[in-house]
Structure formats: structure tokens, C-alpha cells
């Protein structure tokens, strides 16, 4: 099957002039170098490397010098477990099926005496298998209650792949590394919900300071996705969030009413401290300090919930 060779028109006539001009430029370039001499290029190269040698090196000495990563960096996924309502959205939207959630329903005594007791979902297990995770951020994006955050933290390598399944205490621990979202570009459209989200962020105590307000408000990370989130999920979450609950998501909803928010935060969501008992017990059990601290924090939150 021999091919009949025929010349095809390689270039569109409209661009022919442009091409010719380009060719001339190449020829000129080549000619220029010829004039200067055959060793011009060799000498030029030497001068470039020598010049670079006199400049400062760009290396960052990593372990001694910690990189300053931007807030949006997808380093690791942090979980603010108080905010999780076990809506399962993240687990279902995950392309890698790497988020495992266990939960149970619990009867919660009514807030006002005489009202009906409510049931709510209690999170038993929230684990992310980082050996499967592809760091796409869809879970963070779909989370309707801001329980998941991206943290720029990246130093969690393990020597055994099984250790990359990180459970709730560790995920909660990483919330400490979350940075506030950066202020948006001047041309960005202000998000109507952004104010509220910034509040949620503050209330969580994840970071000391929310972004300096300055015109454009922060925290649009989840907004577009929320609009696009499938209907049933949104409905489901509404069901699982009984009104008047002192839970974090409810607080998020209520945060619009500005006066209430701080009061409630005081009631339930103060700064997370360490439960000394658990901490010592965990340490004695030979757990790493980091894990022990996380477990202790968890114990503290659970205790506080029981008291409250």
C-alpha cells in the first residue's frame, strides 16, 4: 500500500506573510551570530554560568527553613468534627472512595423544658485514607457545614502505607494548621454568604484572626459548589439539623443573627482545651505526643458536650 506522495499546502495563505516574516527573523538571528564569530555562543554560555555563580542561590534549606505556603494550598484535609452532621456528602462525592464515616443516632434532651427530645447523628468515626486520596478537594467543596478544610500542612509522611489512614483525632488536630482564606482580588464579585462564612471560621477557633476585612470579604471556597450540590443532599442535611440545637451546624445557620452567635460560642464552642487525664493516659499507652494531644482534645470536647 504505497502512499502516493503529494505536496500539501502546509500553511494557510492568510498567514503566509506572517510566516515569511518569521523566516526572515530566523535568518537574521542566525546571521547575527555568524558575524560575531563561531565561538560567540560558547563564550556567552560561560558568561551566563559565571554570572549566576555570583548571585544568591535560590535553594530553600527545607527542614531548617519552613516554606510559607499560601492558604489555599491543598496540603492535608482537616476536620472540624463539631461541624459534621454525618450527611455523607463528602464520602459520596469522593472520586476515590477514601472517606469512611461511621455514626449513630442519639437522643438529645430538649433545650427548653417540655419540648420533644430530638435525635441527632453522632459521629463515631471519620477517616480519610490518604494513600488513596487524590487531593482534588471535592469533599471540602461539597461540605455544606464547613466541617472540612484544606490545611497547608504537609509533614505527615509515614513509612507504612497503612498508617496513612488518618482517623478523627488526627484530622481534628490538623485544624490548627488551617490558614484563613486570602482576601480576594479587587475585581472579584463579593459573595453574599462570605460574611457568614468568615464568622463560622472565627467561631471555630481554627485560627487566631480572620483576614483583615479590607473591602472584599473572604471565604468563597465552598460557595459555588454549594449551589451546585445535588438537591437531595441539601434536603437531607436540613432534616438532620434540628432547629434550636446547640450543635455547630445549627450555630452556623443561626450565625446570621449576629447577637446570638457569640453567646452560643461561649456556651459550647469555647477554645478547645486538652483533657489532662486522657492526655496522660494516652501518653502512658505509648502513643505519640501528637496523637495523645488530639485524643485529649477529643475527650475534652465530648466531656463538654455531655456537661452542656
Amino acid at each position: 500500500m504505497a502512499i502516493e506522495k503529494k505536496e500539501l499546502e502546509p500553511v494557510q495563505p492568510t498567514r503566509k506573510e506572517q510566516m515569511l516574516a518569521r523566516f526572515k527573523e530566523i535568518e537574521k538571528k542566525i546571521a547575527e551570530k555568524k558575524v560575531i564569530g563561531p565561538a560567540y555562543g560558547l563564550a556567552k554560555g560561560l558568561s551566563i554560568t559565571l554570572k549566576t555563580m555570583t548571585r544568591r542561590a535560590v535553594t530553600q534549606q527545607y527542614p531548617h527553613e519552613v516554606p510559607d505556603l499560601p492558604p489555599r494550598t491543598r496540603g492535608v484535609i482537616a476536620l472540624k468534627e463539631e461541624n459534621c452532621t454525618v450527611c455523607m456528602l463528602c464520602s459520596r462525592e469522593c472520586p476515590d472512595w477514601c472517606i469512611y464515616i461511621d455514626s449513630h443516632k442519639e437522643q438529645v434532651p430538649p433545650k427548653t423544658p417540655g419540648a420533644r427530645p430530638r435525635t441527632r447523628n453522632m459521629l463515631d468515626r471519620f477517616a480519610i485514607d490518604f494513600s488513596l486520596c487524590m487531593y482534588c478537594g471535592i469533599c471540602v467543596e461539597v461540605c455544606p457545614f464547613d466541617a472540612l478544610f484544606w490545611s497547608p500542612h504537609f509533614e505527615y509522611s509515614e513509612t507504612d502505607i497503612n498508617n496513612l489512614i488518618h482517623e478523627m483525632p488526627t484530622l481534628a488536630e490538623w485544624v490548627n494548621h488551617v490558614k484563613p482564606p486570602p482576601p480576594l482580588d479587587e475585581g472579584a464579585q463579593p459573595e453574599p454568604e462570605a460574611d457568614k462564612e468568615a464568622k463560622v471560621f472565627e467561631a471555630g477557633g481554627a485560627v487566631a484572626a480572620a483576614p483583615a476585612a479590607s473591602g472584599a470579604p473572604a471565604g468563597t471556597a465552598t460557595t459555588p459548589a454549594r449551589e451546585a450540590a445535588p438537591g437531595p443532599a441539601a434536603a437531607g442535611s436540613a432534616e438532620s439539623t434540628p432547629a434550636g440545637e446547640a450543635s455547630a451546624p445549627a450555630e452556623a445557620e443561626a450565625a446570621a443573627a449576629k447577637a446570638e452567635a457569640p453567646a452560643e460560642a461561649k456556651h459550647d464552642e469555647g477554645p478547645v482545651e486538652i483533657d489532662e487525664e486522657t492526655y496522660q493516659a494516652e501518653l502512658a499507652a505509648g502513643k505519640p505526643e501528637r496523637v495523645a494531644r488530639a485524643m485529649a482534645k477529643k475527650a475534652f470536647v465530648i466531656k463538654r458536650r455531655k456537661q452542656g
Partner: protein
Amino acid sequence: MSAKALIDHVKEATGAVEREEVTPQGQVALHVTPANWHVVAEHLRRCPRCNFSMFNWLSAVDMEDDGFEVIAHLYSASSLQAVNLKTMVPREGGSVPTLTGLWRGASFHERECWEMFGIDFAGHPHLVKLLLAEPFVGNPLRKEFVLMTREAKEWPGAKEPE
């Protein structure tokens, strides 16, 4: 050459076009029978008016009961026109004449399509596995071929919060 002019021209010149298709986005598809596959392709390649000198890609789509739709995407660098040449072959024993004699680049694409769908390319001089390992059994892109990663693992999202 506009899409319409091209379709008319090919229809007239070869008489082998079963049906044409222009999508709302303006993309052109010519449907032919497997027997006319090579004839139409040769016309598109050789006719100076068409001059589809670029073989862009070739693949297939599993149409379930209808069989497989084989698509060759051709492009003309002179008229900046693209055309999808399509034909339908049965699920089992489907065969299409090879285009390797017209465009050298067709070889790899046909080998890939052969291993992925099990469509034979009659006359291909070197029809062996390309991307898959030699001992691999099955045609992965057929719909009946299950994706093991989705079968072997339980979907964690299947749970309802209880």
C-alpha cells in the same frame, strides 16, 4: 469549505455516505457502512478539495445492542475543517478495513482500538497489543468489562447514617 459544502461534495463524489450529522456546535460526522469505510476515507485523503492530510485519532464507542461505533477523526490543515468518519460494526466479529495505507499514524490508533474493543482492522500489518500487557484477557472499554476498582471495594458512601 463549509461543513455543508463538504458533506455535499463527499456525498456526490463517493455516493457512499449513509447519513450525515451536524451537531449544534457545528461538528460534522459522516456515517458510512464498514464496507465503504476505506472508500470514503481514501476520497477524503486523496481528493485535493478535501485534503484531509491529518489523521487525528481513531476510536470507538460502545453502543450496547447496536454494536460499536468506530470513529476516525480527520483534519485538514488547508481548509481547517475537521470531520468525524463513523461506522457501526456488530459487537462480535466486527471488522473495519485498516486505514494504515492512507495515513501512517493510523497504526497505533487501530491497535489501541483493537485491544480495547475487540474490533478487527482487516489488513492491518501489525495488529498486536499496544497499551495492554500481552497476557491480558478482555477488551477493557467494552461496557460488559467491569472496572475492578469499583467492584473490589465497598462504596463507603453507600451507608445511611443510622
